[in-house]
């Protein structure tokens, strides 16, 4: 196993150029905490961002931060916290789910479009990512976007690359818009609701003027005996007081909520963010993205087909985290059949290599979109050297 660890962009370009002719594929690596994400591949060489670290720009008054791709996410978050700011999208930490160690990097957050509960209100990583620098498959440095949050100059390659899981190129530097940290947080918790009731509550709350920043429902038996439905408010303390009161009134039909603050509930939200309820089990884990009101329908249909399935809802019902037995196709056929009439898509986030090699990890695409996807891969990476096969066969 060869690991290339460039410390400059020029070195990264040289590494890529050196493998173009031989078409030796490269695995791309940040902190290595998410290597179970995507289709498995046997690759002899790795291009690591570990030598590209450091925050390169931070202007709190402009709400912008830039860092080289291998910078630990934790360092970015600490730097922001020192000035009372944060990344808007609450990125998930995959270490619990995969049982991995190491430090997640800011580059991987951009490359894999990693978000968390705040995504329902504040947008995904791709919505806050405003600039990238990367090496394409020709060994050229290219940039897209920049350091200003309003920018429509040219094609938006930033979003295209975000969520491409390294298949389009090697990120060397990423720039995010940031937000002030809220002065206070509070969570409202209702107990004992069914999935359908829980999602209906979340929909009603998200359609209110009181701006819940996170909205989740955990069925009974997952994190406790009883089902809990959670809304998180983030604001100045006086606004939280007011909004918590108004939400309790608006949602009176669902009972009187508990009000939770402090480290206990913060840890609970981290578990939701990280799907930590499925940590350390041998189950296969899926991530279903669908219309929020379809979340409970889909889960119920899948539950009937796959006995033993467990799940919970984030994003107001629009994100279903699902754990199923890992044997056979890990439920792929049943899950995608259940989603077909509803729209949306399913990603197999955790499963043994053999399963991820055999089933479609990412949702299969309609033919014209697959053709476009193939064309885009080729336009960035004509020799097919970056993580080829990570998302789809040949891509």
């Amino acid at each position, binding site marked *: 196993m060869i690991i290339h660890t460039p410390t400059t962009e020029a070195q990264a370009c040289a590494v890529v150029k050196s493998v173009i002719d031989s078409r030796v594929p490269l695995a791309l690596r940040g902190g290595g905490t998410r290597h179970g994400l995507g289709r498995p591949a046997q690759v002899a060489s790795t291009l690591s961002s570990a030598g590209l670290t450091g925050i390169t720009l931070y*202007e709190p*008054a*402009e*709400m912008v931060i830039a860092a080289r791709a291998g910078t630990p996410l934790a360092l970015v978050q600490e730097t922001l916290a020192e000035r009372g700011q944060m990344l808007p999208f609450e990125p998930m930490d995959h270490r619990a789910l995969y049982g991995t160690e190491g430090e997640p990097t800011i580059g991987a957050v951009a490359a894999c*479009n990693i978000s968390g509960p705040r995504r*329902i209100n504040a*947008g*995904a990583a*791709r*919505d806050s990512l405003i600039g990238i620098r990367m090496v*394409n498959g*020709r060994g*050229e440095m*290219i*940039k*897209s976007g*920049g350091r*200003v*949050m*309003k*920018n*429509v*100059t*040219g*094609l*938006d*390659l*930033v*979003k*295209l690359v975000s*969520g491409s899981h390294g298949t389009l190129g090697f990120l060397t530097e990423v720039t995010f818009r940031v937000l*002030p940290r809220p*002065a206070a947080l509070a969570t409202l918790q209702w107990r004992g609701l069914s999935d359908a009731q829980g999602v209906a509550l979340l*929909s009603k709350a*998200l*359609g209110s*003027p009181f701006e819940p920043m996170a909205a989740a429902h955990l069925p009974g038996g997952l994190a406790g005996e009883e089902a809990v439905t959670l809304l998180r408010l983030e604001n*100045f303390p*006086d*606004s939280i007081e*007011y909004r918590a009161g108004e939400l309790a009134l608006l949602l009176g039909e669902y009972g009187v909520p508990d009000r939770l603050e402090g480290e206990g509930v913060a840890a609970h939200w981290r578990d939701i963010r990280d799907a930590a309820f499925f940590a350390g089990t041998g189950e296969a884990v899926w991530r279903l*993205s*669908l*219309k*929020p009101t379809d979340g409970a329908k889909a889960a119920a249909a899948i539950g009937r087909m796959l006995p033993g399935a467990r799940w919970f809802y984030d994003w107001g019902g*629009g*994100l279903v985290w699902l754990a199923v037995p890992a044997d056979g196709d890990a439920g792929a056929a049943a899950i995608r059949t259940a989603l077909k009439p509803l*729209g*949306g*898509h399913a*990603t197999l986030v955790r499963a043994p290599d053999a399963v991820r090699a055999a089933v479609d990890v*990412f*949702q299969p695409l*309609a033919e*014209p*979109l697959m053709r*476009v*996807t193939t064309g885009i891969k*080729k336009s960035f990476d004509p020799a097919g050297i970056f993580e080829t096969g990570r*998302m789809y066969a040949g891509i």
Partner: protein
Amino acid sequence: MSAIAFPVPDAGILARRESIVAGLAGLVAPQALITSDDERRPYETDALTAYRRMPLAVVLPSTTQEVAAVLRYCREQGVPVVPRGSGTSLSGGAIPQEDAVVIGVSKMNRILEIDYANRVARVQAGVTNLAVTGAVSAEGFFYAPDPSSQLACSIGGNIGMNSGGAHCLKYGVTTNNVLGVTLVMLDGSIVEIGGAHLDSPGYDLLGLINGSEGQLGIVTEATVRILRSAEGARPVLFGFPISEQAGAAVAAIIGAGIIPVAMEFMDKPAIEICEAFAKAGYPMDCGALLIIEVEGSDEEMDAQLARIVAIAGEHGVTTVKESKSAMEAAAIWKGRKSAFGATGRIADYICMDGTIPTGQLPYVLRRMDEIVKGYGLRVANVFHAGDGNLHPLILYNCNDPVEAQKAEDAGMDILKLCVEVGGCLTGEHGVGIEKRDLMTFQFNEADLAQQMRVRAVFDERWLLNPAKVFPLEGRVAA
């Protein structure tokens, strides 16, 4: 003005006009095809009126299938296509060329579905921006991106240009508010990208389509996020003696952890022009004005305003004027949103759209003034202060070709300045033809080639809106 070049029209296509028109006539209803000189003339230009070209023909389809049929036909015939929403582009994004067929989506103006529980609406591409909000406002919802032209501009055009507006500091721009589109590709394939769910299954094609300026396909339908309106909203006027103080106040407000829903800046010439037009009660004795809007319940707005007023006080604010009624609030926004129209009453103008890092504001304001004065012209500045998106309006007389050229030159100098200080050529209006030849100031050859290779995946022969975005020289096909 004649500075911006168009591709030389293809003489072969011009010679075949009759047969091409006949071919189109077989694809769409008779009333959807416009061929006479008089009826084609309104499609010669958009809001960049200094440039105009008569298109070969105009088609106004009523269905996605008609769009597909016309695109497939144009591809077979090798005829360029210029997509058009409402024709309000300030960068010339919808200006045709003599050998092109315009495909306008203005007849596709139905709202197809409103889903409050999932907070989305499905609309056809010709629906106007404001009509989306209009359709959901009775239930207390709105569509967030609010370009100044929102009464006229279409959702399809907004997606093409990734339009912004005054309220995107909190709510984001078009790309952050569109969840799905129906896209007709050049070969006539109809594809669904995204939907009512969040995040894409594969590559983020939705993110690529937004802001692609009609070069990747034609969007005929869109699923957009609708948001619940705040309980109340209140714009407040803050007058400062000089621009630098206003800029410092903006930075301090953000530094204090406050993100108002909008922070708009106007300099003295802009204040005078807008006040004369809108009678909004803008203070006339200040050098710079901020319109800051807060949202929430009355008590929340009071509390947030108290924080903002205290910060403004530390930065030399001389006037604080709250809107006391919905009418006063509307007048304040009318003044700002009619800045372009009001300016048009006193002079011809060109409106630039660069974005700068807000920390560079004092320097850029000073340099812009020097640049414009250097050409013997005047400038009025309005801009989105929270995000650094500038809209300098350069005033000139369009009947004076020398002055017109100077105005265009001054505008180009300002955009180069924006790039030099770390910003970009366009924040929300798009590149169009207007900034096409400046792209090499922001991007190097490799950057542009990569964009063009992605573009070629959708249109390798450069038939879709071909005169736009990328310099005419050095184009990459695949």
